[in-house]
């Protein structure tokens, strides 16, 4: 694979493959940044299948498209099944000598959390189990933001959405989000990772590792949503950083073939100093109803601590050596 080297933001800015200007993503939306990092990670030809959602809607309104690579949108819940068809066609046509390019094409499916955790979970599960050679990118903004901020199973505890509103009795969503990264690890996807656009070098390396890996791979990228999380639009990358620094969003990776097939975990970033979760919660109006409820904040802190500790134990027991 032809990987590209970018060490500074200036390097990244010079990389050509990105969404074209004029796309209609919200001010401050980080997914154009996520896509720039994704598409800059390699020179290999890419073919992308995109689930219905913000990204699809804002990047392709006919007669315009912001995509520099072959791209298909089929429906909401089937990006993984769609790319599995594309990848199968590639294999068959290559075998029959009908593919024009000598270069190896890489296949990527992209979905939001609604299209991945919820309605598209079966399609993703099937495609991973069948072992198709593709990378699934989940841009995770923790809710159905395209339809106007409804809860998904990625929405975190106590976040207020339009279908889990903070009311006089109920303080927002009452369930923890399910850990889809664990679910993908349980599928024995070859390479699984969590990433953040704030730590873009880490994210780019993960994309490169995923694309170098034969078989199904998965990266869960946090994608703060300005209207959905309700914060000033210049804070998206900062919030992604605070999510990582507060250990709310753990940057880690997993390889199923490590440790003789037992699998291996690696936490890629350990915050040097403790950052209170309140720093992450406070700028987001979806949490404003709990800022004066220390017992609810403690719930979140405990949950974060449990997740971190669990992952540290896994890493200790099954370390992933580079």
């Amino acid at each position, binding site marked *: 694979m032809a990987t590209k080297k970018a060490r500074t933001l200036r390097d990244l800015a010079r990389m050509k493959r990105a969404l074209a200007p004029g796309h209609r993503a919200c001010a401050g939306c980080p997914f154009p940044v996520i896509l720039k990092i994704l598409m800059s990670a390699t020179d290999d030809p890419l073919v992308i299948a995109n689930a219905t959602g913000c990204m699809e809607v804002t990047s392709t309104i006919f007669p315009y498209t912001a995509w520099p690579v072959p791209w*298909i949108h*089929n429906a909401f*819940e089937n990006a993984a*099944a769609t790319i599995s*068809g*594309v990848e199968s066609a590639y294999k*068959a046509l290559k075998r029959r000598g009908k*593919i024009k390019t000598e270069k190896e094409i890489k296949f990527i499916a992209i979905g939001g959390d609604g299209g991945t955790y919820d309605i598209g979970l079966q*399609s993703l599960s*099937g495609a991973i189990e069948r072992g198709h050679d593709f990378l699934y990118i989940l841009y995770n903004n923790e809710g159905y933001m395209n339809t106007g901020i409804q809860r998904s199973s990625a929405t975190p505890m106590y976040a207020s959405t339009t279908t889990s509103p903070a009311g006089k009795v109920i303080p927002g969503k009452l369930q923890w989000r399910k850990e889809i990264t664990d679910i993908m690890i349980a599928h024995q996807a070859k390479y699984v990772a969590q990433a953040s656009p704030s730590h873009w070098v880490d994210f780019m390396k993960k994309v490169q590792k995923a694309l170098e890996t034969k078989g199904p791979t998965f990266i869960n990228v946090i994608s703060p949503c300005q209207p959905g999380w309700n914060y000033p639009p210049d804070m998206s990358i900062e919030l992604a950083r605070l999510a990582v620094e507060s250990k709310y969003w753990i940057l880690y990776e997993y390889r199923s073939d490590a440790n003789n097939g037992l699998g291996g975990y690696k936490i890629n970033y350990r915050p040097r100093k403790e950052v209170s979760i309140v720093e992450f919660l406070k700028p987001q109006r979806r949490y404003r109803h709990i800022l004066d409820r220390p017992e609810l904040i403690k719930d979140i802190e405990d949950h974060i601590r449990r997740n971190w500790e669990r992952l540290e134990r896994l890493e200790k027991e099954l370390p992933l050596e580079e």
Partner: protein
Amino acid sequence: MAKRKTTRVALTGNEAMALAMKQINPDVVAAYPITPATEIVQLFSKYVADGEVDTEFVPVESEHSAMSACVGAAAAGARVMTGTASQGLALMHEILYIASALRLPITMCVVNRALSAPINIHCDHSDTMGSRDAGWIQIYTENVQEAYASVIVAVKSAEKANLPALVTTDGFVLSHGMEAVEIFDDEDVREFLGERKPLYNLLDIDNPITIGPLDLQDYFFEHKRAQIEAVFESKKHIYDAHREFEEFFGVKLPVFVEPYRLDDAEYAIVVMGSSAGTGKDAVDVMRDERGIKVGLLRMRIFRPFPFEEIQKYLSKVKYLAVMDRADSLNTMGGPLATEIARALYHLSERPIIHNFVYGLGGRDVPLENFYEVIEKMQWIAAGNTPERMVDYVGVRE
């Protein structure tokens, strides 16, 4: 008409469809098992396992994913096939519309089976009738021989029209019924179909295209209109594909409709699928033994709707019994009757139409059903007016 070599073998409908798929050797097959179509997928996966085809077989986790993968593969330029029935087709429903609107000539073998509830595994046409507005070419076959040939000609029709096509057999009646079938040589089938020449190709990396963009008020209608026009034009493509089939193999195949003893008919029956065989026998009995001037029109292709052929063969009959193996639950009976009425309504000469729903959930369709239908039409001819637009035959009321 150069006759190609054929070999006579005993096959069930499912075996015949699977064999046609083997001979076609598509680039990609994505499928999921469902009674009574399971065998098609099963047999095909054995062909793959034995290296008799080099198709990329994608054993998906649902029919929704089957059709989704077919769309992805067809958009990547592949020749793509699948098979399903009933609930499976219903689960594909959302993606059927996307396949046709993206102009992807996917070919699907469907074994007709009643939709739940109550759950049932036997034949009626409620499954494919539920997909009638999805923009697919729909071919209903009368027997196993025709099912076999129809799968091959459907691929040709679909690729000429750049529209997806489905070919049906009646569940169990044909899918599991064994017949002597004349089959072609693999090489001849492959030569006849040649290579698919896609309209566009997702894998053409030097010419990146965006497939399936958001299309709002300012363009959607034009694009939908273009798709509608493609359906208008598909009729010609379907005729051409059948003519080429006939010329290549030297075998005749009815195209949209098949008239039977209609020339001087006062009464006519319209029916689709395997019951047409029984219907033709009933016509013989009623004509030859009872002296009733009755004929039959079998509809083979339901989409695009053959209104011209309907007008040609049926406008001159006096009493028309339309037999639907599905009910629209609209108090007017089945979709076939509604659409035939529309095809004839504006003509100055047109028959009196009455609808009969029959054979739901695999209820046996004996000759008596057809006698009953014609007796009812004679009762109408005698000046009586039926209480409803539809009667139900072969059911305990």
